[in-house]
């Protein structure tokens, strides 16, 4: 087996056509769980989490277990050999002997790329600092396509911390490849989308967008509302954080302004930006989104391992 393994580092590593196949596979998995229950029998997924991210790790592990495979790995740097000073390169050379595929999460940007250069097995970037988190983006795309039936002719509201929000930047880069997508960017002035997205991505590609400050204003026009967390550590002081975090809380009252078929997405975990009273609204799609996260990871594992069912 000297064929070079395929990795996933960036959501744009897959062309739109390849993404279509991946999402078709995820849909088939959703409809025929039994058919895939033993597809990865005898295969092992290594989850190498150099920083804790329980939700992402469990999603990967659930995906592999659903496919009949097994999992091994570590959940934080303390319990790994990195604490003893082993490099990512060396760790991967070793893990390649133990596992068939691996997902790596690392606080340093580019660490999964280094991993992929030293691995003889497929490597999936499960998040590297503020850089990329491709399986989140694939999850978002699959959720939109599954629940809306298509990824086109959509007005997509992105709300919250648009300045530092890695998920939002990746999602914009992924969505501009689809026809007739319009963005409404909803954030406090302090946390507006950075220039390298506004100028180099949106304006350069002639993508229509508007920037608004109030969530209420944007609600009526939206097909999708993508909520994100406003992270406390992004603020210089407590006072700024407390003043701003309340601006963008989605509650029942704001939901009355939205279309009947609007979807609310959120990468989770949430803090208080979506009030729990919204959970029972049929438009709240964030828990189904977490379920799609497992399906897309199952499809990804099968695709990277080149297993046909």
């Amino acid at each position: 087996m000297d064929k070079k393994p395929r990795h996933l580092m960036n959501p744009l590593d897959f062309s739109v056509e390849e993404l279509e196949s991946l999402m078709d596979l995820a849909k088939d998995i959703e409809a025929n769980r039994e058919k895939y229950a033993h597809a990865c029998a005898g295969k092992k997924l290594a989850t190498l989490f150099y920083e804790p991210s329980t939700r992402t790790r469990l999603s990967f592990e659930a995906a592999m277990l659903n496919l009949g495979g097994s999992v091994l790995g570590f959940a934080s740097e303390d319990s790994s050999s990195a604490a003893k000073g082993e490099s990512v390169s060396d760790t991967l050379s070793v893990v390649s002997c133990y596992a068939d595929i691996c997902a790596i999460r690392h606080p340093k940007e580019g660490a999964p790329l280094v991993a992929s250069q030293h691995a003889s097995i497929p490597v999936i970037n499960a998040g590297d600092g503020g850089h990329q988190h491709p399986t989140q983006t694939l999850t978002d795309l699959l959720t939109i396509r599954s629940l809306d039936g298509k990824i086109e002719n959509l007005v997509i509201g992105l709300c919250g911390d648009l300045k530092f929000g890695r998920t939002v930047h990746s999602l914009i880069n992924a969505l501009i490849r689809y026809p007739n997508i319009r963005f409404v960017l909803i954030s406090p002035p302090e946390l507006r989308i950075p220039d390298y997205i506004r100028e180099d991505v949106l304006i350069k590609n002639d993508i229509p967008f508007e920037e608004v400050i109030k969530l209420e204003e944007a609600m009526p026009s939206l097909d999708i509302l993508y909520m994100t967390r406003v992270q406390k550590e992004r603020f210089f002081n407590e006072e700024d954080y407390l003043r701003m975090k309340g601006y963008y809380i989605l509650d029942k009252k704001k939901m009355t302004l939205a279309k009947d078929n609007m979807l609310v997405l959120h990468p989770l975990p949430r803090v208080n930006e979506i009030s729990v009273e919204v959970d029972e609204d049929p438009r709240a799609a964030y828990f189904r989104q977490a379920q799609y996260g497992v399906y897309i990871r199952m499809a990804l594992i099968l695709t990277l391992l080149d297993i046909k069912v």
Partner: protein
Amino acid sequence: MLNISGIQEGYVLDHIKAGMSLRIYHDLKLDKLTKGTVAIIMNAVSNKMGTKDIIKVECPVDAIDLDILGYIDHNITVNIIKDDKIIEKRALTLPKEIRNVIKCKNPRCITSIEQELDQVFFLSDPDTETYRCKYCETAYNN
């Protein structure tokens, strides 16, 4: 007329911006050449540039990484010498990739903790001559 006497085989790098020759000497790793003469001429008079630097190197013609020169300044003229004659003038272009010339300044980059990694940058936008770190994709600013 450029004086190239004394070079059997090698390069004359002409039209170097005055003052830049020592950086180029360093970045081309000319101090690591095991044999061959290197001559640096600084503040030479230039019709085109006012003043310029010139570097003459005696070495095998494939011993120098011209990509690095393209990154530093693609207006430098590269004359390739064989048997005391200029046999070729080579135009420089912006290299697609540069290795171990500049260092990533992003403190969150994996290269900040794994020192043995090569420092690799790729040309992300030829119009603005922007290079980005291969690992974290942060743009390099001088």
